[in-house]
């Protein structure tokens, strides 16, 4: 069934988009991430302009993270204070990201920047996750217990001022690194059209040392708010959010996420991290290959505005 998208200005197959939403939703539910890093490239692949894809995926991630956040809230797995402090940085970062996005679009290097940041981020994060998952698996096989949080190991981050007690997470931490983490995620999310969950979760675990019980729920709240904010900003500044496209993605996404979450509970934690690492790494390598090999067509056309409607 073909449907004409009002903003992207092309007809798409509804079932294809629904299936893409469901597939990415499955992965995101399984690993507890937004899945934007998979969704945006897929949309570009089916012919949607990169700028429209990035802007529309933001609202799609908002939907899936909201449904996730609700269930985590019921299980009291969200630290409201931690989420609030992260949000201060996240909001700032998102505004900065949308501004950068608009600037890059006018410079004509948006596609390159999106591709480059995908390569750097995904290969680094994917590689690290894969390595960590592999080590955890080997350790588990060797019979030693897996400890993510080494007691008593306080880095320089814990020496920073402005400390706050985050009750539900049971940590006592300076607000500075928390705000910075939020800022980075917000910025990346707005520029690349990804929620940043797959970066935020490791950052919270290894840098902020937030206990695993509240990590995913809290990161979902941050993703939710930054993505709602990004949707708003993209709608106001670039007018590129395709609501019809977003709605189809959301319906597929939230459905897929439920089945993904069920599948994820049956897989062991370290295997899950290993798989996610592999997936992230694979997407990163795909982007790297695309940059390095000679493109099929050296020329490209972009409309720079002009015709009044």
């Amino acid at each position, binding site marked *: 069934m073909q449907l004409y998208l009002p903003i992207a200005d092309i007809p798409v197959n509804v079932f294809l988009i629904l299936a893409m939403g469901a597939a990415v939703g499955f992965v995101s539910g399984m690993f507890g991430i937004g899945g934007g890093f998979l969704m945006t490239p897929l949309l570009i692949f089916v012919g949607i302009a990169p700028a429209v894809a990035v802007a529309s995926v933001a*609202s799609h991630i908002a939907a899936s993270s909201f449904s996730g956040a609700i269930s985590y809230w019921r299980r009291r797995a969200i630290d409201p204070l931690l989420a609030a402090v992260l949000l201060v940085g996240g909001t700032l970062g998102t505004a900065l990201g949308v501004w950068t996005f608009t600037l890059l679009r006018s410079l004509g290097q948006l596609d390159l920047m999106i591709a480059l940041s995908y390569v750097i981020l995904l290969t680094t994060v994917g590689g690290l996750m894969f390595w960590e998952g592999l080590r955890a698996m080997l350790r588990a096989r060797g019979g030693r217990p897996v400890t993510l949080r080494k007691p008593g190991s306080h880095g320089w981050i814990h020496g920073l001022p402005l400390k706050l007690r985050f009750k539900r997470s049971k940590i006592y931490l300076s607000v500075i690194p928390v705000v910075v983490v939020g800022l980075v995620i917000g910025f990346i999310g707005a520029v690349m059209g990804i929620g940043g969950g797959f970066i935020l979760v490791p950052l919270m675990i290894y840098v902020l040392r937030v206990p695993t019980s509240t990590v995913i729920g809290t990161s979902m709240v941050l993703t939710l708010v930054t993505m709602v904010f990004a949707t708003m900003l993209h709608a106001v500044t670039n007018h590129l959010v395709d609501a019809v496209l977003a709605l189809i993605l959301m319906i597929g996404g939230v459905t897929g996420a439920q089945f993904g979450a069920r599948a994820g509970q049956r897989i062991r934690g370290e295997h899950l991290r290993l798989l996610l690492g592999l997936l992230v790494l694979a997407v990163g390598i795909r982007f790297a290959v695309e940059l390095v090999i*000679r493109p099929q067509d050296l*020329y490209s056309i972009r409309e720079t505005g002009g015709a009044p409607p």
Partner: protein
Amino acid sequence: MRLCAPLAIIGLIIVTLAAAPASAERLIVSVSNHRVTVTPNYSGGELVLFGSVEKDDKTPSNRTNYDLVVTVSGPRADMVTRRKERRFGIWINTDSRQFLQVPGYLALFSNRPFDQIASPDVQRRQQLGLNNVLLMQRVGPDFADVVPNDPFRSAFVRLRSEHGLYREATSAVTFLTPTLFRTGIPLPAEVPIGTYNVEIKLFSEGALVTKTESAFEIVKIGFEQFVATTARQNGLVYGLVTAFMALMTGWMASIVFRKD
């Protein structure tokens, strides 16, 4: 950049005015549909242009071998053609050329190859064929079109043609009788929204006899139009509604799939 639009249009007018001949024939044409509406299930389409050559008493009686060239040009916009080059081991956009107020859709149809219709000089003046159509570009400080085999120009035409947005068919116009003709105007799904001008030129023995114009428009209606205009004019409301829609979808999902 806004200044260039009038420049390009004035240029076009001068080119077309200079060639207006005293005519003895009249062209009567009509497009099958003057208003193509984009609905949710829109996926391109085809219009038919038909018409006839009306002779009057001034027409030389032995004149029968007419040639016809139809030019359809869509809404104009500024576009940039970029070329990738290898820098630091990766392929990035380096050089670019700006095309000013060029048609978003451009189709040239005729009943036989352009070089059989008229001499190269006439072809250039009458802009017959994609190679001869004026595509205004910013070349350094100047605004000009360049030679047809310029790499940026030919890449631009090739890329537009690959999407079916620029096309040239030298056997698309059929004469049903010596004076009655028709041609199809294929519109791919990606055609830009806006007003399309159709220019019909009649040639005989290598010279322009007469010409006429027609037009049609492609418009979004109903829901598509509502969404598109709201997104552009009320960005804030549009964003709020989209965000609200996202939250509702997420909330609905958490209710539908609630396990406990």
